[in-house]
């Protein structure tokens, strides 16, 4: 039976959400939706509360079977900038919201590059033919490919 998976990647002010049906065979995954949830402007605690509810509701109401979240990563040896830390807060919120509903897995870009295929993630993201082969159904924004890549990698793990 096909599974319904959601991939999420976060920034300090938005969550990219790719919802897809993963077939049992090796066929392309079916994109159901490619959406962004904005973190509300203003009071951060209230905004996280809204996001938590929005995320939990989405997983519950749509019968999501599993979530894959892009893991935190620090570029090089530099110290984390504030935007990155705030993005990590947002990641924590959606992980906490989804976890009572379904399993939540973290995958970092580095791990995908090491374990999936023989190219780096950015090369797959830029390859239109790769996406034509691995996805079908609804429209997937180019900027959401990295989030969708989480699902492709998790599927092959």
């Amino acid at each position, binding site marked *: 039976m096909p599974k319904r998976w959601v991939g999420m990647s976060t920034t300090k002010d938005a969550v990219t959400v790719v919802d897809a049906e993963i077939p049992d065979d090796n066929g392309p995954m079916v994109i159901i939706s490619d959406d962004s949830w904005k973190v509300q402007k*203003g009071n951060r605690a209230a905004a996280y509360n809204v996001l938590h*509810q929005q995320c939990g509701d989405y997983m519950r*109401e749509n019968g999501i079977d599993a979530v894959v979240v892009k893991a935190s990563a620090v570029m090089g040896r530099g110290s984390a900038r504030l935007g990155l830390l705030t993005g990590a807060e947002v990641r924590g919120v959606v992980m906490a919201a989804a976890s009572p509903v379904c399993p939540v897995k973290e995958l970092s870009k580095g791990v995908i590059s090491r374990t999936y295929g023989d190219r780096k993630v950015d090369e797959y993201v830029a390859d239109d033919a790769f996406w034509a082969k691995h996805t079908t159904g609804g429209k997937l924004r180019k900027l959401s490919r990295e989030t969708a890549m989480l699902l492709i990698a998790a599927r092959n793990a």
Partner: protein
Amino acid sequence: MADFVSDLKLGAKLGNGHFGEVFMAKDPAHGDVAVKVLRREAHHDDTAWVAYKASYLAEAQNLSKATHANVVQVHHVVEAPDGRSVAICMAFCPGGSLQTPFESGPMTLEAVRKVGTEVLIGLGALHARGMLHRDIKPANILLDGRAVAQISDFGLVTDNLVLGYASQAGYADHVAYEVWQGKGTSAKSDIWAVGMTLYRLLHGKVWYDASPSPRYVVKHGVFADSLKWLPHVPRPWRRAIRKMLNDDDKSRYQTASQALRGLANLPTTPVWVPTVQPNLVRWVQTKGARRIIVEWTIHSPRKHEWRAWSEPTGAGQKKSMGGSNGVIGGGQAVRELEDFFKV
């Protein structure tokens, strides 16, 4: 099988709705509850009543299984033995409905965005279950004990009823353009009604009543462009509400989730607290130890005047911050005030 008798004890009447009366009650399992008694109305012939009752009972049963933070919880539903009424036992919301704040005056941007967000989250969850509300308005948004907005009266109105009901129940101001044109309701007409609700809450009853009632003008089109805004309402708010109220349902936010995204970027500061009287609009903002006050006096439709000043919350001197320097026209007053508020 034996019949069981409910120990539900009806108390004082809380109000009259279009579909029946609402009572405070004590339920052995849930404590304080509200009980709505739906009764057969004159417009229900035998077939319509049976069909209506069956569909409502089914929908209420669905709701009773569904728990959501932004939907009033239905505990159970029972039909009277004579078949002429249905009693719905639901959570009691001590904060009452948003009809009262609407009648008191405009709410702050922050309060309206909070309500809009909570309503859209509840609406989105129920749309995902294939349900429509068809009756979103301030009176159907209740506040629970923690002042969280919850949508009530889901599924009371069917497509067959919506126009007849709307004209009788005061909902006509919330009927979308395409519904007037006979297209039927949809998730997008619910979003239209949310837009209307947000507009009403931002402006309050006095301001809202000063414009032609939407029930008479929406059906003729371009309603969203004819709205009159309080001058402190920022342009992003106007754009978001106009988008919800677009005549073309394809140009609206298509889902509650999209509308939520629209609300997310709306500014909620500075916090102006407006009050509206027929001839005077007043805004107050408290900033540290000072208060900024703006007053817009409407002497007649063509004679307006405004002034702004700051004053200490304690002892100290007033400072002028601007004004019209005498009587000016209405259009000019609005433009100057919008400049002052930097919308």
